[in-house]
């Protein structure tokens, strides 16, 4: 097995999500993505490495339903780096590469029969979106689901076109933005007010998070006051994933490898990590 070998994929669709974020729908040039024994092509929270030979690869958490094997969707923020800049220059029909999925996803079984509070900010929403798609497919196995999603401004809220469908499937969505904006009447910041809107059984609830900055705010202001123990908080971490198989050392944090021990960690595993 050669895990470094990327697979050629075709861009089926490109969708502008915000001024700097595009959604890419990709499909293998031959056949479909392979399903595991549970019928999933990845576990929500895992990542794939997408790019092209000559440009490099970056890590993305797929956002589409893991049951969908004909295509996979990622959201790419143009950071000005070589890979994301290259991806933003492409058109539908272009061929790129992908490999993976890598790492550990969210603990789907642990979350069963619990209230699940998902919290994310900015570009951290994709793995949470895949989890929501998974939960929707298995709705009876999960209790109340909340999506707490913070963005800098209203036009930076991603996946708006999916949110209506999620709401209809019983997902409670709470949006918040960083600073007041003329067209915005919703929440501003991760303020304690939000707690009033969340009605969960803290004894039987788990928290799933992705995204660095707003995530910490959310923990501080919302999750801790709700009384959910660290053991039931899961965090999807970001580092420089390069090889994807625990060799190159770029994604290490303390004694963990984000690419194989994560990217999903239990909060008490990383809480005191200073690396």
């Amino acid at each position, binding site marked *: *097995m050669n*895990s470094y070998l990327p697979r050629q994929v075709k861009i089926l669709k490109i969708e502008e999500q915000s001024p700097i974020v595009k959604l890419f729908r990709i499909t293998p040039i031959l056949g479909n993505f392979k399903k595991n024994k549970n019928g999933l092509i990845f576990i929500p929270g895992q990542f794939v490495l997408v790019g092209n*030979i*000559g440009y490099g690869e970056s890590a993305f958490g797929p956002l589409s339903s893991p049951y969908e094997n004909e295509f996979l969707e990622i959201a790419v923020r143009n950071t000005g780096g070589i890979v994301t800049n290259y991806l933003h220059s492409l058109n539908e029909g272009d061929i790129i590469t992908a490999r993976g999925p890598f790492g550990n996803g969210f603990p789907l079984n642990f979350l069963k029969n619990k209230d699940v509070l998902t919290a994310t900010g900015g570009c951290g929403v994709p793995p949470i979106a895949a989890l929501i798609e998974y939960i929707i497919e298995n709705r009876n196995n999960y209790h109340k689901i909340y999506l707490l999603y913070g963005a800098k401004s209203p036009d930076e809220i991603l996946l708006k076109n999916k949110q209506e469908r999620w709401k209809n499937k019983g997902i409670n969505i709470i949006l918040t933005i960083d600073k007041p904006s003329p067209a915005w009447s919703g929440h501003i910041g991760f303020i304690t007010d939000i707690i009033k809107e969340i009605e969960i059984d803290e004894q039987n609830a788990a928290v799933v998070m992705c995204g660095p900055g707003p995530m910490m705010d959310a923990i501080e202001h919302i999750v801790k006051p709700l009384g959910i123990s660290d053991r039931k908080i899961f965090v999807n971490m970001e580092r420089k994933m*390069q090889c994807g198989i625990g060799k190159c050392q770029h994604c290490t944090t*303390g004694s963990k490898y984000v690419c194989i021990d994560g990217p999903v960690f239990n909060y008490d595993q990383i809480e005191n990590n200073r690396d």
Partner: protein
Amino acid sequence: MLAIENKQIDFFLKKLSEKYEIKDTRNDVLPFKKYFLPRGQKMFQKDSLNGEIKIAKPPKKFILFGLNSAELLSLTYLDEIMSAPQKDFFYFQNRKQSVVIGLIESENNTNCESGDIVFKKQDNYYIVAINTKTGEKLIIQNKEFFIELTDSLKNTPADLPNKSIILNNENNWTKEMKNLLLDPETLKNAVELTRENKIWEELAEICLGCGVCSYVCPLCYCFSLEDKVELSGACSRCRNWTACTLPEFSKISGNHNFRPTIKERYYNWFFHKFVRGYLEYGASQCVGCERCKIYCPAKIDILEILKRIIQEYPKIKN
């Protein structure tokens, strides 16, 4: 017991060079890892016409000669590291093409187990240890260079003075370092618990962050995947050496750096060798070869640092 005389070694290598490429590592600054994890090794090439991705071909069969006991030990470690959690395709593509011959000059060292063949100095000869079938075949095909050592030859009184000199062949630095490495648990605790110690700030003042310590280490294997575009339009992906002390090592797109200071990066170099590596493989990721000390432009001595933190950490412990 099979042996080879010192003067026969070069003739033996000359004979082997008729069939194999010989990589003689005896006077190399960069360690043998460069043959298994070559700098800038091409992994994939994309055809500029049909876009097909081709895997780079393995090298020709080669003889890797002259690994000393520290290097043989690091070869054992590297083989293990590159096997877990899954096999590194390109490392083993190169590794499979090699026949490794070790050369141990000091007598008080017992590590002859890795490599295909090991020549180990004893009295006026090098005793031949054969570790693999490949090694055995090579010796049989070239038996004219080897002699069967009889007991009378082995124990001539004239050899005794020589023996004591050889026993002292290892310098004090190596002896002291290898002694510390016998207790990797202590080294792990010492590094882990001194994170906030001022020693790392002092070192950050001296360390140039040049990465030489990693490049010359026979065991440092971290790498970067680098892509290239040629004028012809051909694209390739290569694997290049890197060093965790370099500023770009943990930097991601958008310019966020998870280890922005030399202090954090230099500490991570120790943390990998003595904490993360130990937790993964049960041994410190150091073989006491002295290379990082010899080639460090800032004259940082790994042994001195370890000795100091071993003294300091019990004070911190709970």
